[in-house]
């Protein structure tokens, strides 16, 4: 503090003309996720912004090179920890692509249902957290309540609320429980009711709309140049959804819409997520309808499948096969492949390189968040400081995936 009675020239009283430096994060209350922004502000306007990520770098790719192919699943869970099941499916699909395995019919539907439930969780969390950061705490609590309903299903099915480690190469760890379909139908109905209520609170609230409408605008050309995918790309008006453009699994059998925005602002991103959530509910309903009630969820392939426990206990062949898979891992033929799916935030790709052993040679994840966040500076430059919060919230940056 300068003493108050100091004599100053008139010129010295002027505020310095150069932009002020402002550092936001990485532990900033208004930003979920661990990201740091170095801002140059002129008054309230952001002149320049440098987004720094990496505060949750957990060396996913290095850790994959240390275990077996099967041991990657727990790590994959913790990449996009808002929708772990989608990541499980994506990685399982990638390895299956290399092995040339096609999962069983029942497994495909099981994956679709669990995956879409995970997508519902993802969008609920993103929209809820975004609303909370804008001061709307009640919808957040309702969305979290809705998410807990879905988590109850997950716990019933997989044994864990959040990090399921449920995918396996060639199928799923366990078949659906007896009351799976009932539970899912009840939960989805409950979720939609809660979402409707939360939406009613938000979308007629002028403060909420004012802070989203026309803020953080992205053009379709720039969005594709930045490599955006998923809800963020769709909000700009590009109808690219991997599930529609390159139907994988059984997605070609469902009737669903791809919501697209018109301006690519925060409001569109918020609404695209809300609408996608409803489309996911539609897919779940159709998938439950078509899902066979019995049949295996694991392929019968001696290379990847653990023999039934009964055989392991009783026969020497079963025991040996079990030992080989557990101790050496699934042997994936040498080569490389890129497999892509639509995850919560966009195209989640896995570029796998195998040297033929039971351990991955290289697992490269193409994290949708990382690439979306790389354009964040473009969205907030020229805006106000207060606009960072909704803009950042609407991009749904997930630290685990972004920093892998």
């Amino acid at each position, binding site marked *: 503090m300068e003493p108050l009675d100091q004599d100053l020239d008139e010129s010295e009283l002027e505020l310095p003309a150069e932009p002020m430096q402002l550092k936001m994060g990485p532990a900033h209350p208004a930003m979920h996720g661990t990201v740091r922004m170095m801002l140059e502000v002129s008054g309230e306007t952001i002149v320049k912004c440098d987004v720094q990520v990496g505060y949750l770098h957990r060396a996913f790719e290095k850790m994959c090179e240390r275990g077996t192919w099967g041991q990657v699943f727990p790590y994959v869970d913790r990449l996009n920890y808002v929708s772990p099941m989608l990541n499980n499916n994506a990685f399982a699909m990638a390895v299956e692509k290399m092995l040339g395995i096609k999962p069983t019919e029942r497994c495909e539907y099981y994956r679709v249902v669990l995956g879409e439930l995970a997508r519902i969780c993802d969008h609920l969390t993103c929209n809820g957290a975004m609303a909370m950061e804008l001061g709307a705490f009640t919808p957040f609590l309702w969305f979290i309540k809705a998410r*807990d309903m879905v988590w*109850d299903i997950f716990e019933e099915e997989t044994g864990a609320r959040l990090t399921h480690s449920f995918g396996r190469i060639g199928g799923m760890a*366990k078949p659906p429980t007896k009351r799976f379909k009932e539970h899912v139908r009840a939960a989805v109905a409950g979720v939609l009711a809660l979402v409707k209520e939360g939406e009613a609170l938000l979308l007629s609230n002028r403060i909420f709309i004012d802070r989203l409408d026309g803020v953080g605008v992205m053009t379709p050309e720039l969005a594709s140049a930045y490599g955006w995918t998923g809800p963020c790309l769709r909000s700009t008006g*590009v109808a690219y959804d991997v599930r529609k453009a390159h139907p994988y699994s059984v997605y070609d059998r469902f009737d669903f819409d791809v919501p697209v925005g018109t*301006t690519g602002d925060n409001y569109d991103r918020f609404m695209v997520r809300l609408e996608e959530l409803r489309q996911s509910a539609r897919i779940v309903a159709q998938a439950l309808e078509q899902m066979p009630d019995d049949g295996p969820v694991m392929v019968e392939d001696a290379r990847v499948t653990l023999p039934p426990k009964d055989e*392991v206990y*009783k026969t020497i062949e079963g025991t040996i096969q079990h030992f080989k898979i557990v101790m050496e891992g699934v042997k994936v033929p040498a080569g490389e492949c890129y497999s892509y799916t639509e995850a919560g935030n966009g195209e989640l790709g896995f570029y796998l390189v195998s040297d033929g052993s039971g351990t991955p040679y290289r697992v490269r994840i193409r994290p949708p968040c990382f690439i979306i966040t790389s354009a964040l500076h473009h969205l907030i430059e020229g805006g106000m400081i207060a606009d960072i919060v909704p803009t950042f919230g609407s991009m749904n940056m997930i630290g685990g995936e972004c920093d892998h």
Partner: protein
Amino acid sequence: MGNGIIGKPIPRPSRDAKVQAYLPSVVAGIGVTVKHFFKNTKELAFGQRNDPVLEAFDDGVTTISYPEQKRPYPERFRGVHRLTLREDGNPRCVACLCCSTACPAQCIHIVAGEYADADKKGWEKYPVSFVIDELRCIFCGYCVEACPCDAIRMDTGQHAVPYDSRDQFIYERETLMSFSDPSGRQLTENPKDDPARGHTPDRLKH
């Protein structure tokens, strides 16, 4: 950019008088909240508590007063590990190191030992020490899947308990053997003949 997919356009926000005037939506919002308030109060007052298993699907109060009221965990819930016992009270484990190999967190440590000839009864090895660091464990269930003789299970129905020092999380063989599944069962469901009963396992007949 045309790629053959026809998107479903999202409507822009409505800016009608009701929204622009703030107040109607404020009142409507308070209305929703008050509705919930009375509903919850009614449930509290009349003691209409929901079924603790599926309470999340119901409206109204869903708070679980945890330490007093416990929600039973589902059947597949992966909780604290337990070592199953043979009928003679020894651990079922044969120290094959499958679980510690399959563990991504390397939280299982086994020292294998061999039975004295008199105690063998068809079994060669047993774990002299079997340690699980529950703090390090990520509860993925791979050890259970990897076990070829159903010796380790996570069906205790208990979550791992917090402590205030790290060494208390080191669960040793005796602790792990003392746990049971929710029904109190400590034995295994492995149908393999137990040599303690005087049979010879099938695989040893080869």
